[in-house]
């Protein structure tokens, strides 16, 4: 099947180096300490952060830093065919672990000992790149909660189909069987916190694809910074200064 037409257009009309339309919004769940919605094309994800708060399970309490927990759930209606078991399956457990490790690397946990920070991510619509959307939403939610972080963490995926590196794969392109690289970076510090790939790629092509994903992440970071800046302006305006 042809994923990149001879004119250089993908199945949904994008160019190979073009990302899907992204949209982020802060403060969607009133009861949470911090929350955000993040959309990448048709993939839509809500993240809610509760914390820092007292540790619920005393045996897990750490005396020198905060405990970060994460849970990833997909709604029944999020995928094309209705899922029967939205929680507890192995893919959800793996992604929960991945998100937790990624966010833990950037949260300054030593500033909040003996506390717990819960990050809950709920996928409303899945169309490829859910991992990346979740990390971006979690970054926004953590910022909304005011939790000290070393840097933002942004994530984007890239792949290689029909001999072309493609940025931000959707579900159809992801299931095509080509390589799928998911990357998470801290843009200002220029450090990679998440790197996952499936299928196989020659090493020089892998470098190209990874570079493309880094560009994608930096673009997401610029957008996230704008959203946060706009939010801060609104807060200041409401405060009356």
């Amino acid at each position: 099947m042809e994923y990149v037409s001879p004119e250089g257009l993908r199945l949904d009309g994008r160019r190979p180096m073009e990302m899907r339309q992204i949209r982020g919004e802060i403060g969607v769940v009133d009861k949470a300490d911090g929350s955000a919605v993040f959309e990448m094309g048709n993939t839509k994800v809500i993240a809610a952060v509760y914390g820092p708060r007292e540790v619920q399970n005393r045996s897990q309490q750490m005396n020198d830093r905060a405990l970060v927990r994460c849970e990833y759930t997909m709604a029944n209606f999020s995928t094309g065919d209705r899922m029967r078991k939205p929680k507890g399956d192995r893919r959800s457990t793996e992604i929960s672990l991945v998100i937790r490790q990624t966010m833990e690397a950037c949260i300054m946990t030593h500033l909040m000992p003996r506390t717990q920070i819960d990050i809950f991510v709920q996928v409303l619509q899945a169309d490829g790149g859910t991992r990346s959307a979740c990390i971006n939403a979690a970054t926004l939610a953590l910022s909304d909660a005011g939790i000290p972080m070393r840097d933002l963490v942004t994530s984007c995926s890239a792949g290689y189909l029909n001999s072309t590196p493609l940025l931000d794969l959707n579900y159809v392109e992801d299931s095509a069987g080509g390589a799928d690289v998911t990357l998470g970076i801290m843009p200002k510090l220029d450090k990679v916190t998440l790197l996952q790939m499936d299928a196989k790629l020659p090493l020089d092509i892998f470098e190209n694809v990874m570079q493309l994903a880094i560009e994608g992440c930096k673009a997401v970071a610029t957008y996230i910074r704008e959203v946060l800046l706009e939010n801060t302006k609104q807060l200041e305006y409401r405060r009356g200064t």
Partner: protein
Amino acid sequence: MVGLSIGEKHFIQGGIAQDIRSDGRKRLTPRPINVKTGVISQANGSARVRMGATDVIASVKAELGRPTALQPDKGKVFINVDCSPTAAPMFEGRGGEELSAELSVALRHCLLGGKSGSGAGIEVSSLVVVEGKICWDLYIDGLVVSSDGNLLDALGAAIKAALSNTGIPRVNVAAGASGDEQPEVDVSDEEFLQFDTSKVPAIVTLTKVGKHYIVDATSEEESQMSSAVSISVNRQGHICGLTKRGGAGLDPSIILDMVSVAKTVSEQLINTLDSQIAAAEAGEDES
């Protein structure tokens, strides 16, 4: 939710007794409802309902299936509710299962009729394609994104809105199929039939705090409740389902009184809902 102090509890109970609640509403005034339809593009129909800080999403997916032997001329409807951990940390893992099960059962009582399918609020006979062989199965999924009390009413409203937004694809059945074989069906991608929701009821929950009952309780007010009665009423004013929750016993005359109060309140609620749904659909068509 953080625990309430004794002073706060007295404040809530006293306010309700004097017909001024913590947010200024009267006892029988609901919070403003905000409805958005078509929020899940992959579903046949969907809606998102916000009542104060309570935020729920309902989605309807239609799949072809086989009718049951007992009711060969009716389609099937399955209702399931899930509580997302984003609503409260205690819903993580399996913590939300009890509440999800309670809400699912209450919704099934209110919207789907008895075991024989009679008296259902949702018209299932319009879902049959070929009698005895092919029918539409509707999977209605509710998701609680943010919880601030009155989840049942919000879910009922969201399901009503999602059903109004639902388009069932037109099916062309190949002629000439005989006996036990499954007929060939061609599911159209273009033409959709709008689902008829004029008979779908709305759910009103009356929460009893002290000696009075209130409509649309927040989670703080719900923590003070002695019992609650959820009544589903349709446009004609007929009662389609009734559920009582809570430990305290209720005098039968009080229940009858609550039912009549629910009928008046539900009339307003159905009107508000219908106008909000119409506005949401119109807004969606334009965009």
